[in-house]
């Protein structure tokens, strides 16, 4: 009895110190995010239960679930949820495929590779507004690049930003173009962990490019791809500038994602509380994706660990 007490006493201080040190590594980032993101977020979520106006952000009254029930009953809301999901799906798939293949293509050494990498990061390095302006111009029905090329090739023209048939596609093209380099960057970094000798071995064995990718490269970059996919999804759900500036949610609401309607509600209608309620639904969407991700992630990590 006395012995064990003595033992605990001697172990404890050292252990406690070490534990404390652990927290100190994570504390700065945590405090930081608490202050600049979580506090505003909590405030934002709270607003969803009030009738706050933008012109008087602190003067709202608590009105319970009214904002939510009225949203759930509106066709426009469900339309924006559908649009968000569609926009997100296509963006994620498009950027992942494009970004990964770009990274693979640029991972091998060849002359002028660095320059090409530079070129391929241009879209991401560019202010969104610049990308938007050039795409508006490219989409211009009479003098835009697309329709001019279309006319030259005889495949006709389209109202890229005016025709409800094309609106979302136009926004998606611009988005994927703007965003895919970030996938390329991250995958390029991840590719460096694929042992060179493994890939060499695969090549000598005569494995064709695809099966060498699937069998050797893909497993190595899979954890990275998963996290990139998650980030892409979450970023797509909340992407705002490029959509809003290109189409403002039109034509005929075909690009009116949840976040675009949040902005319209908050700043056009000055209705901060409905915007906040919408925001909660947006968060919910991201939340579901994240939880799904973590479930997959744990399963996969376990699989990797056991194999």
């Amino acid at each position, binding site marked *: 009895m006395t012995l064990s007490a003595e033992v605990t006493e001697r172990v404890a201080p050292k252990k406690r110190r070490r534990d404390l*040190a652990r927290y100190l590594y994570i504390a700065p980032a945590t405090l930081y995010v608490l202050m600049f993101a979580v506090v505003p977020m909590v405030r934002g979520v709270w607003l969803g239960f009030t009738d706050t*106006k*933008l012109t008087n952000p602190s003067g709202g009254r608590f009105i319970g679930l009214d904002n939510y029930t009225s949203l759930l009953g509106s066709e426009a809301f469900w339309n924006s949820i559908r649009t968000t999901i569609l926009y997100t799906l296509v963006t994620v798939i498009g950027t992942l495929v494009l970004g990964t293949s770009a990274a693979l293509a640029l991972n091998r050494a060849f002359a002028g590779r660095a320059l090409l990498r530079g070129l391929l990061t241009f879209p991401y390095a560019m202010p969104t507004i610049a990308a938007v302006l050039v795409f508006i111009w490219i989409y211009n029905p009479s003098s835009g690049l697309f329709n001019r090329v279309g006319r030259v090739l005889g495949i006709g023209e389209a109202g890229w930003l*005016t025709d*409800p048939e094309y609106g979302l596609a136009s926004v998606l093209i611009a988005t994927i173009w703007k965003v895919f380099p970030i996938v390329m960057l991250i995958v390029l970094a991840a590719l460096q962990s694929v042992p060179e000798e493994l890939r060499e071995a695969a090549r000598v064995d005569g494995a064709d490019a695809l099966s060498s990718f699937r069998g050797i490269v893909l497993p190595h970059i899979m954890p990275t791809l998963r996290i990139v996919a998650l980030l892409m999804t979450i970023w797509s759900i909340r992407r705002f500038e490029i959509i809003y500036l290109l189409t*403002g949610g*039109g034509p005929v609401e075909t690009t009116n994602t949840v976040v675009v309607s949040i902005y319209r509600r908050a700043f056009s209608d000055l*209705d901060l509380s409905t915007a906040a309620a919408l925001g909660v639904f947006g968060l919910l969407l991201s939340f579901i994706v994240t939880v799904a991700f973590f479930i997959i992630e744990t399963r996969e990590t376990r699989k990797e660990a056991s194999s």
Partner: protein
Amino acid sequence: MNLKLHRGLAATATFCLIAGLAACADSGEDNQDTSDGKAAGTLVVANYQFLESGRGEALWNGLLQYESANSDAKLEQSASPYLQYVDKINTELGAGAGPDVFVIQEAQFATLAEAGLLATLNSAVEGSDITDLNSGLKIDGNQLGVIWEQVTYALIANKNVIEDAGITEMPTTVDELIAAALQVQERTDASGFAVRHLMSEFESWWMDYNVWPFGFDGAWSDGEELTIDSPENIAGLEAYKAVYDAGIMPLGDDASTYRTKFKENQLAFMIENNGATLSFTSGGAITGQDIESSPLPFEYPGQHQRIVLAVNANSDNKALALDFIKWFVSPEGQTAIRPGLGASTLATDVPLGADFEAANPWAQTFLDAAATSRSNLIPGFETETKPIMQVIMQAVERSITQGQDPAAALAEAQEQAPAAVG
């Protein structure tokens, strides 16, 4: 020891963060009145127009004359690009911050006034020559703003283009307009006609769009109830749709694009406001002499866009702000900003300069329109104008891009609008 060390590392980072935040938590700059009671200090003025090349400088220099009128005052610009100006002012004022003096659109004025964020200007405008038009900015007997400028709408044409097309008379009806535009497109490689039609330009589109229903004596409300699907409004949308479908418009062009086309002799007709029209006279292929103007091709008058100068109720230096407004509505102040504001109607009746008139013969049509033009705000729903207009413009969009019947589209909007009003 290593524990201490890495703990120290982490602690340092935390400390830097907190210290950084705390250090800058207190930097209040204050203005004070001079002892003789005269207003003094620095006044922050916000206006997106300051950033416009040419006009911006003229306006700012005009305002700077206040510094010579009150030697204790200093003006400072709060800059914000046009694109996000409204949102920024709303965010700032809502948080009790923001510039001392600023310009705002009439719709925004209504909401800010309702929220009590605008200071009363009664003492500043007392005894001034401000016109009756300013009485719309009086709420419950308090003057909460004065007109900065009021722009009106007219039909304008590029003389070079229409002469090439053999058109000598300005159209006076929608049908004539379509015919003339088609004639232009047949005989030249220019487009016939352009107006806004893109949802990405909603913030301006809805204000521009009102010429169509107003031209048929339409109104979005009778002062009590919304009347979105009234026959007049339907007629207005039908006319707009007819023009849209007539193949005379460069569809997909945003305003910036078709306006530049106009400047480059690639567009014949526009329904425009005088502010935009003035901007065509510089930096392009045409001068003021190349622009023809005529009243809107409708039976009834159009609307105006009113830009209001107001004072922040939370300003640290209201006395100075009021002194500034007092100067602004004086003949001295009004003359100072006239050159920058072209053919707009101002808070007082200040004549256009003779030089300006000679260079811009198109201007008078716009000034004449001011006598009968109507407000863009929806009577009885002033502060909810924008959400309602959002619903309406969505209906308009459905009608033109998906061919929905105008009556049905507006009926749908009439149904949806109450929800938007909340």
